[in-house]
């Protein structure tokens, strides 16, 4: 589903991503882990062609990431998601649906379904400017789920959510996993990742330290956090 081959990204003298190669299989629940500034968000941006690799190649579903068609069945939730404050949540979702080239009636149906799914019934018609950060994040996830994507790229999806919101998000993501959707998760919450992800990759200073099934990464008596600290510090 996702293939990164010898991907390097340099910003002048800084190497944000250094010769990273890994792949994510269809239906996999994958987590990309790393400390701040490790290059996680740069990888997410390269997946979506928001920024181009200095060298190497990326493909999504066998289509190069530079081609717009590869984003036909991708849902994306940005870290600290923003929505124009002049729009209502409903208008935002409707725009997202329309951009996926569906008819108006189909878009309205999808939006109704999504609003229910993210638990925002009754709040969808108020302006986004009045929403809390968590509510904006929910509508962001709703936008990512629009059009029944086959791949979800989530950059810190629990950012700004309270503990109940985090639990609801986890349940929602687990239900998506059960539907066979491939999930690429970029997160700091190692305990959450350990609970729900199949595979994980840890990067530090742009270099890939490990990529394997979580059960292979975490040895007996250890937690993912212990492994993470050991690898990053060591």
């Amino acid at each position: 589903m996702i293939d990164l081959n010898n991907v390097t990204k340099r910003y002048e003298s800084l190497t944000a991503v250094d010769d990273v190669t890994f792949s994510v299989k269809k239906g996999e629940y994958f987590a990309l882990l790393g400390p701040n500034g490790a290059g996680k968000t740069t990888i997410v941006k390269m997946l979506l062609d928001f920024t181009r690799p200095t060298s190497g190649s990326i493909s999504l579903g066998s289509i190069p990431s530079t081609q717009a068609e590869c984003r036909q069945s991708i849902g994306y939730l940005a870290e600290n998601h923003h929505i124009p404050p002049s729009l209502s949540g409903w208008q935002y979702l409707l725009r997202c649906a329309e951009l996926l080239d569906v008819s108006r009636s189909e878009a309205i149906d999808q939006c109704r379904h999504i609003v229910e799914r993210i638990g925002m019934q009754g709040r969808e018609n108020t302006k986004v400017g009045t929403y809390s950060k968590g509510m904006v994040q929910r509508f962001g996830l709703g936008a990512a789920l629009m059009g029944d994507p086959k791949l979800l790229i989530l950059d810190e999806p629990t950012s700004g959510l309270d503990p109940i919101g985090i639990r609801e998000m986890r349940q929602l993501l687990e239900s998506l996993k059960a539907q066979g959707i491939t999930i690429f998760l970029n997160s700091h919450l190692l305990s959450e990742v350990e609970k729900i992800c199949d595979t994980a990759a840890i990067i530090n200073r742009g270099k890939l330290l490990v990529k394997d099934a979580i059960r292979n990464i975490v040895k007996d008596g250890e937690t993912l956090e212990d492994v993470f600290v050991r690898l990053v510090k060591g």
Partner: protein
Amino acid sequence: METPKSLLPITRITKYTLIDEVQQTSFVVMFVICAISVFLVRGCYHGNYIVNGQALDAGTIVRTLSKATFHVIAASVMVIAALLSMRLFRRDRNEGMQSCILSKPIARWQYVLGKIIGIWGLSVLFMFILHSIVFLITSISLKVFMPQFLMGSLLCSINLLFVVIAVLLLSLLMPDIAAFLCVLGIGIVGFVADGIAAASQSQIAQAMLRQPTGHPQSEMTWWKIVYVFWPKLLGVQQLASSLVETESSHGFGTLYPLFNVLVYCLILGALLLKRFRNEDLV
């Protein structure tokens, strides 16, 4: 007729750009101020004007005032178009619409074209409404019909396209306000240069130029080249306002400003698409 598939995202982005801009309070305030200002011009048509001791007839007053209003509106809307364009990409980026749109199967050129068409369309509409107010005032109140006035307005839209593309391109290379000031500077220099060129065609200026000045002829050549290739925004406006007076003879010399600005639009548009294609979206 079915819309080609690649045009659908462009039309949608155009629609969103128009809606988002119209909802801005600053846009509404600018529009209301401009409309009221144009309405206030109405009183000028009823004044008595005396030139060289002779009172001007109503027809001359209407034509002269309409032409002056035409130029003021066209120039003002160029400034407004630059103001609307300068924060277009930044606002989209800050409000999350850019990443929302470009994470969908939409190519960057489609996004940029949608933005250009949206803001250009809005500026053209803005100018057309203001020109229409003048047209209605002269038609209803003074019984002077000048449909060419509206034709001239549409011709001036090419200037707005230039301004929009230039500001969008420069806003990717420098701070927004610097991009706005640069394009404003290009416009002012062009207007001043055209004014000097027009003045130099007068008999007095011609007589002065014939006198030996001691300057070598070649010194002027560089300025002439720069002048000829400088964006001819005033030239386009003059061409458009000549329609108002139904002046004749539209040879290549008269049409050159239109050609000049169109070529600039194409070059700057290509540069904008190329620059945005390689832009890192944050």
